[in-house]
């Protein structure tokens, strides 16, 4: 059963295996010595991979899986006290253990790296061009300055910086995040390296910018013929871009193979769980999200057996005896053999560099292949109660929140002593929407589109600059102090960052009790209710006395949800509640939110930039662009028939964790960055990036430039603000 898989993938990758690999990593292990007598941290154990010219290897894993550390080790960028063993060969030459000066000659010229955070990757006091020219000069000090300069301009053009000649003299802070990442990529390409390691290159960026950067990386590969190692936690990014995938867990590679094999025929329960936990844009292919329970093991004291066994739904007693080697599917030792050899035996089997053959570190991989199991088969599918929404029509349900023509403008001030107003940031510029009882409205858009400003305006419960906000049918503008205080119970918020949303100096008990005590609940009630809430969000009573720092991200987000639920609100405002979490944890929190909604009849205002999560959780969706809503309607119809060109571009930019479909899709890649909200374009705000605008005739364009489109219904629960939106047939 597994032989034919191996053959087909072997054939597909014959070209890459035939030639000598550019980068070859074998049995790499990285250990950070424990501080102050603490235990050593085994960050990476037994990682091996090879990449050939022009090949893309995706390394996928959650935070703490060692994916970044392994590439930093390959680059020689880890601190000196780190213990690194194994071998890293560049064109067959061992580079592990080279001294810093020898390594510096390789870095940038033969092997280069693109880092995650484009904001801190550039020195703020030098111009972008000079930094780029320096990257050229540093490997060839004899080259003429003018030549390096010309090359820098050429590189800026290559990575799609408009007016490269002028932008050469710009400082990093004048560039947007996406443009800075372009400069970082230009720097990595400057000396035509043979390997580019990209460490989460798009994680800090918006989806439309992410699509641009991925396009750019494709260009970089074509231009330089370099091998690319793409490190990411986003399974969608890898699906459409990588040739082969290496999945890491707790510092170990647990599955590797061709991208199609790993995605469609995963043989390691962890990979299966990861894929099952990602919300999909095509929900007909997916039931409930499958969370992986528990947390990764401690890297300082890894369990003797398979590191995933404690979380694995199909773990056997043999799994805990010995760590399974990364072997071809089906060639794992049989259970009896493992038992016979007993615990502590070294993992057996060959662990060579890695070709196209799919291999998994699971003793049941053969069985999984035989049975053709998927995530839904082996993971307990969570049972989420159905909501009883369909019984009552939307129009008949009471209104929980109505926002009418809401405006939030920030003045732009200049000058230190005599402040004068030099402009206005149109953060929120006249938006309307409503939320009915028991439903979820998602507010989506890129960063800077005004989603968070909208939330803050609603949460203030004050008098908006223009327009009105009414919560539970009560206009917030006319509320007195006492009325506002009472109304605060009905609207609660869950924040994005589970690190900063909980006071680190308070125990979990005090955190959850705070809203109750504020609203004057008697102490006995507070105690009872806090423990009840802990149970409701899936935490135990023993957690009450601990501090937030002792919890993982997902658990902290649960504490945040418990706090928000404490005063029994009717409306929960969720500000990107899962975007800071790992995929497997995210699924658990999303399921929890869905379950709570069904059980408690909550309404959600769900702010997110992640359209796939929105697709999964929201009933209705509102798309924002530069302070305006451009499209609003029920999720299914907006996703299936996006009427606004911006919505279409957004949807198209979201990568799907399905290699076949991802390759078959044609992406609409938006040009450039969103305009500044301080200086929005006249007429339709989207026209500067609109792909439809480009195809219009002159009089039609005139209309877009001069008249701002209003949000007009297109039939059903769907409205759009575009003069030339695709109308639905018959309406």
């Amino acid at each position, binding site marked *: 059963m597994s032989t034919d898989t191996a053959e087909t993938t072997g054939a597909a990758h014959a070209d890459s295996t035939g030639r000598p690999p550019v980068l070859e990593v074998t049995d790499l292990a990285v250990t950070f010595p424990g501080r102050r007598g603490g235990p050593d941290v085994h960050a990476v154990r037994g990682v091996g991979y090879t990449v050939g010219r022009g090949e893309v290897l995706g390394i996928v894993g959650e935070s703490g899986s060692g994916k970044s550390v392994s590439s930093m080790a390959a680059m020689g960028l880890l601190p000196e006290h780190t213990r690194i063993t194994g071998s890293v060969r560049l064109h067959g030459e061992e580079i592990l253990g080279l001294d810093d000066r020898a390594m510096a000659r390789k870095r940038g010229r033969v092997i280069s790296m693109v880092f995650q955070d484009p904001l801190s990757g550039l020195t703020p006091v030098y111009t972008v061009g000079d930094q780029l020219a320096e990257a050229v000069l540093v490997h060839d000090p004899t080259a003429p300055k003018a030549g390096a300069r010309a090359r820098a301009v050429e590189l800026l053009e290559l990575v799609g910086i408009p007016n490269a000649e002028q932008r050469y003299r710009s400082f990093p802070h004048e560039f947007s995040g996406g443009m800075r990442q372009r400069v970082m990529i230009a720097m990595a390409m400057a000396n035509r390296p043979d390997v580019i390691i990209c460490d989460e290159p798009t994680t800090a960026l918006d989806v439309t910018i992410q699509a641009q950067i991925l396009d750019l990386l494709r260009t970089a590969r074509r231009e330089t013929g370099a091998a690319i190692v793409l490190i990411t936690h986003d399974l969608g990014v890898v699906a459409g871009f990588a040739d082969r995938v290496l999945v890491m867990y707790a510092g170990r590679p647990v599955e590797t193979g061709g991208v199609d094999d790993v995605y469609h025929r995963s043989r390691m329960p962890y990979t299966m769980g990861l894929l099952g936990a990602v919300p999909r844009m095509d929900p007909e292919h997916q039931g409930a999200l499958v969370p992986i329970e528990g947390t990764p093991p401690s890297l300082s004291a890894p369990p003797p057996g398979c590191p995933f066994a404690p979380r694995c739904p199909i773990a056997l007693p043999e799994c805990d005896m010995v760590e399974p080697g990364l072997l071809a599917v089906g060639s794992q030792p049989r259970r009896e053999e493992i038992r016979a050899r007993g615990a502590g035996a070294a993992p057996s089997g060959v662990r060579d560099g890695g070709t196209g053959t799919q291999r998994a570190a699971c003793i049941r991989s053969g069985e999984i292949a035989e049975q053709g199991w998927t995530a839904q088969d082996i993971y307990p599918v969570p049972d989420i109660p159905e909501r009883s929404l369909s019984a009552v029509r939307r129009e008949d349900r009471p209104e929980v929140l109505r926002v009418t023509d809401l405006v939030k403008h920030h003045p732009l001030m200049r000058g230190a002593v005599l402040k004068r107003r030099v402009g206005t940031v149109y953060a929120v510029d006249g938006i309307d929407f409503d939320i009915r009882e028991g439903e979820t409205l998602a507010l989506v858009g890129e960063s800077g589109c005004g989603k968070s400003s909208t939330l803050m305006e609603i949460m203030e419960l004050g008098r908006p600059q223009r327009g009105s906000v009414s919560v539970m049918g009560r206009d917030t503008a006319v509320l007195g102090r006492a009325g506002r205080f009472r109304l605060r119970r009905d609207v*609660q918020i869950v924040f994005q960052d589970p690190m900063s949303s909980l006071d680190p*100096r308070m125990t979990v008990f005090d955190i959850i009790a705070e*809203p109750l005590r504020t609203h004057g609940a008697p102490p006995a009630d507070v105690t*009872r209710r806090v423990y009840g809430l802990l*149970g409701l969000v*899936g935490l135990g009573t023993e*957690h009450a006395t601990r501090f937030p720092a*002792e919890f*993982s991200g997902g658990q902290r987000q649960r504490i945040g949800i418990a706090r928000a639920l404490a005063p029994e609100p009717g409306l929960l405002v969720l500000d990107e509640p899962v975007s800071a979490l790992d995929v497997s944890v995210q699924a658990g929190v999303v399921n929890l939110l869905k379950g709570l909604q069904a059980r408690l009849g909550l309404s959600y205002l769900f702010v997110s930039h992640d359209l796939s999560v929105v697709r999964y959780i929201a009933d209705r969706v509102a798309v924002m662009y530069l302070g305006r809503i451009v499209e609003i309607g029920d999720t299914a119809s907006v996703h299936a028939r996006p009427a606004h060109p911006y919505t279409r571009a957004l949807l198209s930019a979201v990568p799907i964790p399905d290699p076949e479909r991802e390759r078959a899709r044609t992406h609409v890649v938006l040009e450039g960055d969103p305009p500044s909200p301080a200086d929005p374009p006249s007429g339709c705000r989207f026209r500067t990036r609109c792909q439809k605008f480009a195809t219009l005739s002159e009089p039609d364009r005139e209309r877009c430039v001069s008249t701002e489109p209003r949000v007009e219904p297109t039939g059903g629960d769907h409205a759009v603000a575009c003069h030339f939106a695709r109308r639905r047939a018959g309406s």
Partner: protein
Amino acid sequence: MSTTSTTEESTAPAQAPAVPRAPSRTGDITRRLLGTRRVLVGLALLLLLTALALAGPLLTGWGVGERDFSAMLEGPSPEHWMGTNRTGQDILTQTTAGLRRSLLIGLLVALLSTGAAAVVGAFAGYLGGVTDRALTWIADLALVLPGFVILAILSEHFAGRGGWLVLVVLLAAFSWMVTSKMVRGLTVSLREREYVQAARFMGVPPHRIILRHVLPNMSSLLIADATIMVSTAVIGETALSYFGLGVRSPDISLGVVIADGAPFATTAPWVFALPTALLIVMVLAVNMVGDGLRDALDPHSTSHRS
């Protein structure tokens, strides 16, 4: 803690009839505070100093101002255990009596100054707007005023009994500004934290947010400031006394004794050694307690808790 972490099928709240009691934060902190050896040693030293300060003058049999004209600037003897100074006063009596005043001055000034800095800085930073501008203006004004000169002038009027209390207030009044600016800066960044916003959105009034969320999260700064302030206040008082402006005779403070003894530090070390040693022990003890308090308040510093 990972075992019960992500259970999707949560148990209904009704299933737990035996509700555990609510944890108490102050009890927890006290227990941790008393569980640290450093704190215990520090507290013991402070108690010892207090006892010495109270009992010292009674032990020697010499009065505070009393002079022994038969023994001037003499070393330790059965008559004078720690020797005498230039004018024949008993060093032990002088030192312990001075310690009593200095302990009070040091601790009170630290408390007042840090308290004022915390309150002014936190309210200015949290409330912003007019309050911020007014409070910042007051702090700036206090900074540019020549504190030493004003103290010198005012102390003329407050000499005599109870004058040291006025001195405490004045010393505190001229030492809170820099810390309050630091506190304000920290508050401005803490104000944007999501837990502060969450508290605001659940209707917690501003003064409660400041006391509950803002100040505890900068407790390390405040405690460090207060411990430094203790020694600064004692030394500041010494400086004033040196010019005859601080504590006046017949009242006496550690600063006065040290200032008197300083010229003889090399020729007659006993005059200088004891008061200086007591000052060092006092600052050390306060630092130990402060360190322990900081650790007890900081949940990150303790990893082995039940």
